């Protein structure tokens, strides 16, 4: 390509967001070939086999659950909410980082978002899909889940609008619809690229239909830009509201450990924390397997790690405030809840949460850690585990010992609890691998724009 001369980053003090010499053509080909030519890598097949096996486990666990009922899980009174709700809160939170990257960073004109936003949005959609399944699986009669939706039914009943569970279905429903719309809209120009580059008739037709006949006309781009910016502006408050509403599921109840005004910001910070951890967990193997190190550079990993550090500090602050408020309130049930978390039967969970979410992320203060891919990957796994345990701690330790000692009891997960958790992880991974195989994992049209901004654009 003619423009090979210009590869240097403009701002030398920072790591580049795009390395290598790319032209409009070569960057289009490089990204679309992942889908059209499908380079094979043993890592893909190993991951695919593992995820498929876990997806089958998930299907089996769901089938048995529908046959037998929620009694196959370890839940009972007083701990009637456990793994499924923990998974739900955790998965919704993971989705938040994707929206944060694609919407919030767009509003802030952060150029580094360009090469990570597409797969971060995909991560959001698949994570929210997994989250949405969990409360439905938890229903005694899951086939009636649509009763939460307001529609004129023959029973003449309407949803109870004062219940956070109804707010929840509105929040999650809106979140998944808006996430899909945002994601699909960004995909339209790239689907047109695939349509025009595919050599196989079937692919041309399928990509062509989904590209809606996109022509790249100036007026179409103009409307595209306006609508995309508006969607980003709408998705930003939405993402804050979603985990706030999820937290209200708990804080509206009067259970000690749940009934707290700090919950909405506390949950949102935790959501971003776990979401950015998952973004690292995904992007590090993704760029290795598909050779995307030029697009997902150390700059991206460094920035994601920095945001993770900030969110982690907010989460740590929330833990401290939770303890402080319990004692400041003078409420003996609140005080006992904190002491029970630290020293009771679930104390190992509490201290694991502190270790994973407060202690380990402090390593991210060091640039050397942020630039070491393996260390970052390890920290991201630790934070993912820590955030799952945090959700578990909030839900289970609050329920298992409430006001009346005679009703105290323990929760122990069964095989089926673990099957649902691991199965949902497998299915999330499986959907993500399918996505990488069939759709461009990086926004091609935005990468062309990035190329343009770095060079004079002659091809």
């Amino acid at each position: 390509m003619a423009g090979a001369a210009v590869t240097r980053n403009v701002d030398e003090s920072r790591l580049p967001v795009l390395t290598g010499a790319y032209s409009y053509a070569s960057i289009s080909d490089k990204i679309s070939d992942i889908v059209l030519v499908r380079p094979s890598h043993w890592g893909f097949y190993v991951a695919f086999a593992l995820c498929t096996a876990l997806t089958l486990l998930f299907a089996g666990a769901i089938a048995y659950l529908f046959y037998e009922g929620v009694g196959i899980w370890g839940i009972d009174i007083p701990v009637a909410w456990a793994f499924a709700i923990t998974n739900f809160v955790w998965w919704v939170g993971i989705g938040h980082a994707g929206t944060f990257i694609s919407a919030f960073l767009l509003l802030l004109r952060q150029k580094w978002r360009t090469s990570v936003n597409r797969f971060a949005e995909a991560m959001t959609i698949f994570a929210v899909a997994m989250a949405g399944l969990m409360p439905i699986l938890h229903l005694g009669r899951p086939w009636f889940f649509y009763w939460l939706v307001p529609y004129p039914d023959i029973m003449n009943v309407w949803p109870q609008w004062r219940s956070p569970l109804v707010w929840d279905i509105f929040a999650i429903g809106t979140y998944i619809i808006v996430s899909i719309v945002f994601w699909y809209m960004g995909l339209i120009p790239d689907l047109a690229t695939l349509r025009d580059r595919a050599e196989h008739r079937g692919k041309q037709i399928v990509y062509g239909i989904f590209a809606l006949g996109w022509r790249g006309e100036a007026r179409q781009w103009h409307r595209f830009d306006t609508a995309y910016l508006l969607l980003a502006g709408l998705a930003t408050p939405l993402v804050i509201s979603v985990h706030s509403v999820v937290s209200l599921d708990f804080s509206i109840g009067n259970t000690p450990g749940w009934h707290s005004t700090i919950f909405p910001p506390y949950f949102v910070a935790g959501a971003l924390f776990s979401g950015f951890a998952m973004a690292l967990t995904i992007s590090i193997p993704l760029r290795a397997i598909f050779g995307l190190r030029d697009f997902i550079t150390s700059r991206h990993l460094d920035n994601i790690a920095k945001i993770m550090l900030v969110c982690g500090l907010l989460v740590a602050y929330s833990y401290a405030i939770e303890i402080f408020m319990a004692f400041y309130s003078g409420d003996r049930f609140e005080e006992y809840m904190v002491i029970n978390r630290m020293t009771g039967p679930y104390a190992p969970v509490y201290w694991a949460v502190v270790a994973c979410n407060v202690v380990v992320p402090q390593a991210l203060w060091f640039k050397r850690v942020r630039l070491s891919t393996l260390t970052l990957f390890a920290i991201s796994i630790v934070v993912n585990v820590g955030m799952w345990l945090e959700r578990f701690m909030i839900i289970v330790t609050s329920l298992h010992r409430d006001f009346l000692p005679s009703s105290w009891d323990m929760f122990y997960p069964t095989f089926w609890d673990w099957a649902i958790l691991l199965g949902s992880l497998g299915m999330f991974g499986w959907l993500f691998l399918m996505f990488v195989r069939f759709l461009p994992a990086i926004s091609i049209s935005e990468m062309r724009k990035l190329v343009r901004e770095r060079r004079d654009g002659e091809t």
Partner: protein
Amino acid sequence: MPGARIDTPRDARDPPVDHAAPIHGLIAEFATDAALVEAARRATAEGYRNVDAYAPFSVPGLSDALGFRRDRVAPLTLLGGLLGGAGIYALQWYTAVIDYPINSGGRPLHSWPAFIPATFECTILGAALAAFFAFVLLSGLPKLRHPIFNAAEFDLATRNRFFLCVEAVDPRFDRPATRAFLQSLRPLSVSEVPL
């Protein structure tokens, strides 16, 4: 490998064409976005109205050069948001106060603070759907068949080439004159777009 057709030097001469056959327009191909913006600006200045520019990414200033500024997406988004929010609030009020009144913990039937979360979510939902459909429908999509796809090399419009098309319906359109004008913009090539 599709790579075979990357940047092959293009034959400047046009293939033999039937000059009597009706065409969609004349299209000029450019290598850079700056050339396309300049071409669009000059075509508009020349008095052409039915001009379209095609680019593989959103080129700043391109729609401006074509005289296209207001796209009506934003007002429609606002309308969608207002409809979504007002609609769900009205539904909550009607069901909770009129059709299915339930005393929930002594709260008033019209307990508006509790109605806010669903109202907020549906405002966002209505606005987002309106923004998306305004973009799709105002852009004339979905439209899988369009004469512009007949243009030579037009598959590169989604890869690395920039096109300017003067449509035959333009009142000032005249095959030889328009072709000469497009040639004066120093494009990579000028060709006819069959209907």
